[in-house]
């Protein structure tokens, strides 16, 4: 029986090529979009799940609720907590303190091979908590020795070629020789902690003098920490035991209500936004958003199928009548039509796999992901069978139930105009389709407007030709000579140093006392940046009042320059020459006020900032001379750097690139929304094209009569296009509030955001109408141009 059904379906497809192509292409595009999004979403959920014990892993975080500066949750914690967790909290199996795994960069050198891989300094327990597969060495002992290192396979290959790397020597940061005690597999893309080498935490303590007392300093929140709970222990059991540890050991934390919390490692990738000490959002919001978009595009494609099938029902009605008359039950017919839709869905699925395979490369490049179709996975194929079945049933159910309901006597006699009866539901479905598509257009436009608006926002300094380089000890020693040589090369216009690059703030501290402070008013959190001479001139920040630091080092040891936001925050009318207590230093004199500059998020207001003068900062900031080719200049400059810094490869960042990276995520969201909006519209138009053809065909006779009576081509075109235009207009009206509903909360997440005006809705509506007119007109004009004689004669 199924063979019979498949045969009919196949012959029907061949006979109605245009409809079949519209159906298969539309459905394939929809399925491809949903499949692609599905693969992406699956990857986001797969993060860190490859770790055998991922369910027991947590990162330690601090949550503060400061009465003045609001509440925030930070991953930076202090070291003495590690031993307290180890010894006093039952249920915790392991604790590992780390120094920013994946964020640190270490210089590794073997002979003349130099690398700057992402690195980290970890307690030996880290390797047992994060059981990344080892290729060589023993994870239990690998980082016990101070002068040991574990590296990944790529790094081993790059440094040692095909030689066995075990127990070979690597020079780290041109300071110490360490021995390779382990090699682990390259970290998979689905790990939230990515690094190529690890050094023992003891190495960090040995080489960084500021850490000498860190294990006793409850206020030194400069480290990250991970724990593994014992099997069967839940976070709910642990939470009350750790919550008040900070205040217990350091009563100072009472003021800001310091609390210890754990975040599951498996949630780290998806949940990064904290509210009241609870992870509430982050990437998960976008994962949900794109899941919704995927479902919508698939729905749009299914609606096409439904509409085209029911529109074509006139042609199938007789078959239904005959089949019923020769003994088919409704059940059989439903089964038959579902078989058909499953067959078409399956064909579309094959196409969609092909499509996904084709766009996977560009998609990965665009989204920075590494997804692939897991052809070898049985689970994948199992899910795909379900996917095809579900899509086939969704798309085929309406045609199946509609077509099988025909009364045989009536359809065989031709007394009912089938197809017409289904026109109201069909219209509703078209409105649903276009509402989704237009919402996506509106969303895309608004996201782009927001990105552009923020990009155009004045940042308070000049990014052109500005670059920065992290300085090694060697560079620090040779800084003055390096600076002179760079300036002499005429490739560089100006050179300075600072303790933060322009696109990040590395240190936050406080102003404890200032003139006009209310009694009992607590300190102000501010950004603290140490700079050398020429900083403001080099980066292009304007002094509004007062003067710059003087080049002679003696006079400005107790001077600071503040920005406008800091002056405003303290409420100082005439800040110059006022004294403040800053970062534990008493009576610092304000000598100048500088314009606000955006150094952290481009979406938030500039932070109150205090600059002081010092020789210590290790980030070199320099502006290339006007008119030089930046790449050629960098090549020449690199040679000068190499002279002073032979152990390291030359490494630099253009500030403009670093700034634009802050928009990566939003730009990506904008691009994806744009692509999906275009696809949604494309699929909807395929359906519209088919429907227009159907309507034109159905009204051939009417059009013939009208033309004989003197209707112009324009009249006929209007007649056929009008109905569809009305539907699209209704869709625009529905889509506008829907898009607004989703986008307003999104925009509100940004302090600096556009206000949605009526323009975007008008623009989207006009775009949708133009697209509709173009789609429908082809059929309308074709019908209008037909010779009326032929259509009337056939009656």
């Amino acid at each position, binding site marked *: 029986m199924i063979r019979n059904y498949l045969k*009919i379906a196949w012959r029907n497809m061949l006979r109605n090529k245009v409809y079949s192509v519209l159906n298969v292409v539309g459905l394939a595009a929809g399925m491809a979009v949903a499949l692609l999004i599905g693969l992406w979403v699956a990857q986001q959920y797969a993060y860190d799940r490859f770790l055998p014990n991922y369910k027991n892993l947590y990162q330690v975080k601090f949550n503060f609720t400061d009465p003045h500066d609001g509440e925030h949750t930070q991953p930076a914690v202090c070291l003495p907590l590690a031993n307290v967790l180890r010894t006093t909290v039952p249920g915790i199996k392991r604790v590992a303190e780390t120094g920013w795994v994946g964020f640190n960069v270490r210089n590794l050198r073997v002979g003349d091979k130099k690398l700057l891989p992402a690195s980290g300094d970890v307690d030996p327990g880290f390797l047992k908590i994060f059981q990344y597969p080892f290729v060589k060495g023993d994870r239990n002992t690998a980082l016990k020795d101070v002068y040991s290192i574990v590296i990944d396979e790529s790094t081993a290959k790059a440094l040692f070629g095909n030689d066995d790397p075990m127990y070979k020597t690597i020079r780290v940061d041109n300071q110490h020789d360490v021995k390779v005690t382990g090699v682990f597999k390259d970290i998979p893309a689905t790990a939230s902690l990515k690094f190529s080498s690890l050094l023992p935490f003891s190495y960090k303590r040995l080489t960084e003098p500021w850490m000498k007392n860190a294990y006793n300093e409850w206020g030194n929140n400069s480290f990250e920490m991970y724990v593994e709970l014992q099997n069967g222990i839940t976070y709910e059991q642990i939470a009350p035991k750790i919550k008040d540890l900070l205040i217990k050991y350091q009563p100072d934390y009472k003021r800001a209500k310091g609390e210890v919390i754990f975040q599951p490692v498996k949630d780290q990738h998806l949940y990064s936004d904290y509210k009241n000490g609870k992870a509430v959002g982050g990437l998960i919001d976008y994962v949900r958003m794109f899941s919704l978009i995927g479902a919508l595009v698939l729905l749009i494609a299914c609606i096409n199928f439904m509409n085209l099938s029911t529109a074509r029902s006139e042609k199938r009605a007789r078959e239904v009548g005959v089949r019923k008359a020769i003994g088919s*039950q409704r059940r059989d017919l439903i089964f038959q039509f579902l078989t058909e839709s499953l067959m078409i869905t399956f064909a579309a699925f094959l196409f969609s796999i092909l499509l996904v395979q084709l766009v996977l490369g560009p998609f990965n490049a665009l989204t920075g992901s590494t997804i692939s179709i897991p052809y070898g996975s049985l689970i994948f194929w199992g899910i795909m069978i379900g996917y095809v079945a579900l899509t086939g049933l969704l798309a085929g159910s309406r045609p199946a139930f509609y077509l099988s309901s025909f009364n045989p006597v009536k359809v065989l006699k031709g007394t009912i105009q089938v197809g017409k009866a289904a026109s109201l539901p069909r219209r509703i479905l078209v409105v649903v389709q276009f509402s989704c598509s237009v919402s996506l257009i509106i969303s895309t436009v608004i996201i782009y407007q927001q990105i552009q608006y923020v990009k155009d926002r004045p940042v308070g300094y000049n990014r052109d030709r500005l670059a920065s380089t992290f300085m090694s000890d060697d560079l620090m020693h040779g800084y003055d000579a390096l600076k002179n040589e760079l300036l002499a090369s005429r490739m560089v216009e100006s050179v300075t140093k600072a303790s933060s690059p322009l696109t990040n703030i590395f240190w936050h501290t406080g102003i404890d006392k200032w003139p006009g402070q209310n009694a009992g008013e607590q300190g102000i959190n501010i950004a603290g940046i140490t700079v050398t001479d020429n900083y403001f001139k080099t980066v292009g920040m304007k002094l509004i009042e007062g003067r710059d630091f003087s080049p002679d080092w003696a006079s400005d040891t107790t001077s600071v320059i503040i920005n406008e936001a800091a002056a405003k925050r303290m409420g100082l009318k005439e800040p110059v020459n006022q004294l403040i207590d800053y970062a534990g230093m008493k009576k610092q004199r304000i000598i100048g006020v500088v314009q606000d500059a955006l150094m952290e998020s481009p979406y938030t207001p500039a932070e109150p900032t205090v600059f002081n003068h010092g020789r210590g900062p290790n980030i070199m900031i320099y502006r290339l001379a006007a008119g030089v080719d930046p790449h050629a200049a960098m090549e020449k400059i690199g040679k000068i750097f190499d002279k002073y810094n032979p152990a390291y490869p030359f490494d630099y960042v253009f500030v403009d690139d670093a700034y634009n990276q802050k928009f990566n995520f939003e730009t990506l969201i904008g691009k994806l929304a744009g692509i999906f909006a275009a696809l949604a519209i494309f699929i909807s138009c395929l359906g519209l094209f088919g429907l227009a053809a159907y309507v034109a065909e159905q009204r051939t006779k009417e059009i013939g009569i009208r033309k004989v009576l003197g209707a112009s081509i324009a009249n006929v075109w209007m007649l056929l296009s009008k109905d569809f235009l009305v539907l699209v207009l209704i869709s625009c009206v529905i889509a506008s509030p829907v898009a607004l509903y989703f986008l307003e909360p999104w925009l509100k997440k940004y302090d600096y955001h556009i206000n949605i005006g009526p323009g975007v809705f008008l623009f989207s509506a006009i775009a949708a109408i133009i697209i509709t007119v173009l789609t429908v007109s082809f059929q309308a004009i074709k019908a209008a141009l037909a010779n009326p004689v032929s259509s009337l004669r056939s009656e």
Partner: protein
Amino acid sequence: MLSLQHISKYYQVGGNKNIILNNISLEVDEGEFISIMGPSGSGKSTLLNIIGMLDEPNEGYHYFMGQAVHQLKEKQRSALYKRYIGFVFQAYHLIDELTVYENIETPLIYQDVKGSERKAMVADMLDRFQIVGKKDLFPAQLSGGQQQLVGIARALIASPKLILADEPTGNLNSKQGEDIMELFRKLNKEDGVTIIQVTHSEKNAEYGTRIINLLDGKIESSRKF
């Protein structure tokens, strides 16, 4: 085999009852060949459709093969009808996408006949109607007479006890029509198949053993030969 008692059928059009069949009672015995005649709109086809269970009366009792059809559920009715009734249409109503062979085979599929058995039965039928050579053609490639032959073959394939034919020769020329009527007579005489046909043609009606004349939804006369 068949008994209709006080059957009425009407449609509500606006406030008016549009009566198609008005209190019709009819007994049909096995082996009869009945021709139903009457002007357009007299209710011939509706009567035939009710007998064939494609349509339901608004009032009356309907017995078929000893079962009270008016009390049966859709499913049972369908089962009963699949087993005993074959339909022949004026417009043949073959399925365009299926070949001659497949068209004839379809009713068997709906009756869950096994594949090998189906093959034998269809081959037999093709043989009997001498259309073996045409079995792989599609309906559009056949003449009207040939299409109707296929239509009858399809109606007979499941060995029905009753054939219902709605103007079977209406779309055919007189020679083709005569052939079909001869075929009906042969089926009736030799195979004992009961036949009820609706026809406009006096000549075709005379092939039957009884002629029933309908007028305005009522039986005007009934003649037996």
